[in-house]
């Protein structure tokens, strides 16, 4: 009879937060639909990465921002996470959104012990409010500073300078998604490779400079330049 004591390997929570721009401009050219689709596409892969990781308890949530911001999905274990469609209208209140993320990263409600949170900001435009104040509030929180911050720019109108400030590291650039295929690729990369390295880094190669305090895997292959501007 197989009886052994104890339970599963001890884990730490890993908070994965989508911060999605739902401003009016996201409703043009099917951008918001493409984002909904990309996240749905990536979910099974994200589940499988979490399933293979014995060290992390992955909790996913999503914040939508337009005029103001609101939690679209509350913290949910990855196994139970379901995506409901985002809709686009209104302004681009990024500052409001970052303030809300900052509040959630405060201890409490955050636990004292965790893995570095992963924050993924997806935007197609320019902030319409005081985003600097929001970013300062975020970076004021220890968990905000420690977070692995990734940004995806949708289309050519996205303000990459703002996204770069959010990332806060000169060598790590916003991922540019000029078409739905590139968006799917980037979303898949953050939900698999980045999720993996933030919780249980894969084997390490010598001489690879660290872009953040967690090793990030190689970026996905650059999109085919002939595709740029083709779709939106």
């Amino acid at each position, binding site marked *: *009879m*197989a*009886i*052994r*004591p*104890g*339970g*599963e*390997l*001890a884990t*730490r929570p890993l908070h994965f937060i989508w911060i999605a721009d739902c401003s009016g401009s996201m409703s043009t050219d099917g951008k918001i639909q493409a984002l909904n689709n990309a996240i749905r596409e990536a979910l099974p*892969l994200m589940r499988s990465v979490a399933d*293979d*990781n*014995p*060290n992390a308890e992955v909790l996913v949530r999503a914040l939508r921002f337009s005029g103001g911001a609101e939690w679209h999905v509350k913290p949910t274990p990855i196994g139970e996470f379901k995506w409901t469609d985002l809709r686009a209208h209104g302004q681009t209140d990024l500052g409001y959104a970052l303030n809300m993320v900052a509040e959630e990263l405060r201890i409490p409600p955050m636990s*004292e*012990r*965790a*893995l*570095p949170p992963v924050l993924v900001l997806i935007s197609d435009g320019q902030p319409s409010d005081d985003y600097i104040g929001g970013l300062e509030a975020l970076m004021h929180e*220890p*968990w905000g500073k*420690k977070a692995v911050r990734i940004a995806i720019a949708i289309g050519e109108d996205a303000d990459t300078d703002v996204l770069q400030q959010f990332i806060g590291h000169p060598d790590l650039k916003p991922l540019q998604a000029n078409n739905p295929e590139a968006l799917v*690729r980037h979303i*898949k*990369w953050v939900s*698999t490779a980045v999720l993996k390295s933030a919780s*249980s*880094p*894969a*084997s*390490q*190669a*010598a*001489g690879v400079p*660290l872009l953040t*305090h*967690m*090793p990030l*895997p*190689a970026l996905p*292959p650059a999109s085919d330049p002939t595709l740029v501007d083709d779709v939106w």
Partner: protein
Amino acid sequence: MHQLLPLGTTVQSASGHPCTVETFLGGGGQGEVYRANLVDRVLALKWYFPEQATPAQRNNLEVLIRKGPPSAPFLWPLELAAADDFPGFGYLMPLREPHYKGLVDLMKRRTEPTFRALATAGMQLAQAFLDLHTQGLCYRDISFGNVFFDPETGAIQVCDNDNVAIDRAVDSGVLGTPRFIAPEVVRGEAAPSTQTDLFSLSVLLFYLLHIHHPLEGRREAEIKCFDLPAMNRLYGDEPLFIFDPHDEGNRPVPGLHDNALAYWPLYPQSLRDLFTRAFTAGLHDPEERVRESEWRAALGQLRDTIRHCEHCGAENFHDVGRPADEPFACWHCDQGLAPPLRLRLGREQVVLNRDTELFPHHLDRLRRYDFGAPLASVQPHPQHPQIWGLNNRSATTWVITTAEGTTRDVEPGRSLTLAAGVKIRFGNLEGEIHR
């Protein structure tokens, strides 16, 4: 998220045969693995990301393919593969058998093997790395993802062998996987070698038997954000064994590290001593690390000291170093257990359970560990099932001397009744049954 080779693609093996990509199996840091069909033989095909498909990787694979696998558990590169329409290259290897489970399954308790299967898996792991190191090769990236085991038998398979290299000869750039990397490699003072493999092997064995990391105690509990600098401190700059007998500063914290607290006291002192050496002296001095042959012997002994609780059936370990008159209770049901019937073979002891089998290494120290064909097994008497005996499944006749001094032959196929005081001559080695 496969993106390198579309399903249905045909690549060419180095021997000139077409190989068709059938399904995507998984991706890692270096490339993607597919199930592929090479002339009606189903194999695994690993294809490298373009930036990983380097001449150095290719040369290394050629060396490994030429050398061949160190032993059967290695799913070794068989031949290189290339394709006209896709950049880079890949290699073919045997496919892992589906009933093998990953160590992640063990950590997440999705598989519940017996202690016997785990001890066997540990022995086989030690044997596999001994075989690899004997060839002058080192693995460099021992971790959860690379080892699979059969939860019924404890047989193992070792995957991802493309980073194996001649010890200290090639700098492939692979440092290992955090939590498994030797402290001197974490600190950047040494490159991976067979000596650092020994550290990673010890960590893997500790995980196998404790479902916990040997350095994660109070110091881990005090870390808020478990990021890379924190990991480097815990596993590199300030490593301290959670059961260091001379420094209690990193003991497991109840509520956070319960597995370590639950498993550690179950094991015989000799095994705990070995882990202690591996993670105290062996943390700082690679020459003090526990060698594969020592692990193999210790885990073989662990396997031999398993005794089932007569009340609840749980596996307990009979500690041969424990005084016989010291009371012993089952860890699971807490009921007292009398000392089990044992067979003393030289310095070793084998507990005689209803399912005990003796293998070549038990009866001849020079024989290789092989759990394929037992030479003896405990069996009930066919007419009197309450009487248990040791059945001779070898090809040689044993000679026994009973407690009263009578000698008898036990020909192949016959059994002797298990009773304290019986001496058995198995060829060169004499054993004695005692309680």
